[in-house]
């Protein structure tokens, strides 16, 4: 029983991290916090890919004499890409946050929508100046 639990421990933690990240994304109104949540959510996916690649008693996939059991390299590559994508998204998101902060003076979604800034109606709003 405990054995079965341990064998799937990685997956359980992965799932926990995902749920937590997603929770932050949906529940929090602070834009930076949201982005952190997204980052958590994404990085939890890394484990989902990497855990199966591990072979107990194996070594990293760098070929050398004396080793014959190597971890599966493919997931590593995929996750390398995923990490890069993640940080790229984060950077863009943060840039948006900075601009929003300059345009609205806040990074709390609640406040932005509270200040009559519902995206629905088309009340005339000052344009975003290039030099903000």
């Amino acid at each position: 029983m405990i054995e079965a639990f341990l064998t799937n421990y990685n997956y359980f933690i992965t799932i926990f991290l995902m749920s937590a990240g997603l929770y932050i994304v949906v529940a929090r109104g602070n834009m930076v916090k949201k982005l952190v949540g997204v980052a958590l959510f994404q990085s939890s996916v890394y484990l989902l890919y990497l855990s199966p690649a591990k072979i107990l008693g194996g070594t990293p996939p760098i070929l050398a004499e004396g080793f014959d059991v190597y971890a599966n390299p493919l997931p590593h590559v995929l996750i390398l890409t995923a990490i890069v994508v993640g940080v790229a998204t984060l950077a863009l998101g943060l840039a948006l946050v900075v601009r929003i902060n300059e345009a609205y003076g806040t990074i709390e979604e609640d406040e932005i929508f509270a200040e009559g800034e519902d995206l629905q109606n088309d009340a005339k709003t000052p344009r975003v100046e290039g030099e903000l």
Partner: protein
Amino acid sequence: MSTAALDASFNLIQQLPALQVVLPMLGSVITAMVRKGAIAWFVALAVSWSMPFVAVVLLHEVLVHGTISYAMGGWEPPLGIEYRVDAANAYVLVIVSLIGAVVMPYAKRVVDADIAQENQAWFYTMYLLCLCGLLGIVITGDAFNAFVFLEISSLATYAMIAMGRDRRALVAAYQYLIMGTVGATLYVIGVGILYVMTGTLNFADLVDRLQTVENQRPVLAALSFITVGLSLKVALFPLHKWLPNAYAYAPSMATVFLASTATKVAIYLLVRFYYSIYGPNIELSGYSAGLVLVVLSLLAMFISSFVACFQQNVERMLAYSSVAQIGYITLGISFGSKLGLTGGLVHLVNHAFMKGALFMCTGAIMLRLGSVKLDDLAGIGRRMPITMAAFTLAGLSLIGVPGTVGFVSKWYLARAAFDAGQGWLVFAIMASSLLAVVYIGRIIEVAYLREPNNITDEFAKDPPLSMMIPTGILVIACFYFGINAELTAVTAERAADAFFAYFGAAGQ
């Protein structure tokens, strides 16, 4: 090495699949290096105009010689990344690249108006990257590669939207970024589970190995993750929240381009998974997904159209109508029959035509009046006659008046509904298109039957030719393919066949 050797060794036709994606990427790099808006525009134009030729040749090759498989880096498929072109994605490639080609000439003026001087070149870079990403998603035969290009197009999209003239564009872009990233990540989770279960990422390979997987539960979970993830990108009904703001506040050019391509590509990928990859194990995907999809599509068709009727901002109105139209497409897909899928695919291209035209018109109005609020449109029917005429015609086709592409789509969907023994759906389809009458009618009435106000009097006049001609082309397409739908319909049928035949094609 000598040019003779080059000619000997370099076979263009063979390399087309790669070029389809590499050229836009190269173009984006060049536009980013020359920092002059005008030159960048020219580069983008050249690339965008070369794309349709590539796509059409590919489509022709496929229709004549069958599926093309292109091994990236020369590594045979399961090992390397494969570009697999069949009628289905060649069809979508043609749509996307054609729209890109039509949009480009239009872009010059609106970008000059919307985007700050020193950002224009970069804006075209973003556009080209977005194009590259979309084409990459469509053409690839590898689940993870699709994700990478999905991200390219998404990031470029966020940046483009954020360039909108209104500060709300920033918030819209941010919200889209969050939802889009979550969607993409969910997709990756799904792919990950699939990969763990089958050990491969190649579509064709997946099809084969999914047969051998005896424990189906994770596979189902994977499908549901992929569905939800992509639905976020498709803006399928309850997950459409990001779309109206994004379209309403993005720069006109971005709106035109995205409205007629982005969601389509996501739909293609979804269909690819449902029909091609899970298709053979249809007892999996067909179990209740069809029903769910029908319900969601109907909700989209009605609720979104209904909401559209109450919008004051015309671009928001059209955006909501886009959500509704996506409902039509998914409805066609949900029948699970060839006729339905064909209907969905036909509407894919038809909707691209009409929404493209409509948003081009609103873009022109935005250019002249700096606003697309309904009340500001009073009486422009006589101040911008050609623009509003185009708008009216495209609107008619959105309503689905016979003789327009909209009718062709509805006809297919209706026939598919009858063949699926669900005649009642026909009434639903027609009823929701009557809602389109309401919201298009509102605009027409204001534009033609109200007296123009002083702003309109002063500024409203038809946009330059460079914008009217592309609009005209799309409008003409709306009617030509409504009177003679042979081309679109037959191609769409072949595409539908291809979706179903993927399993068979996977072997060879």
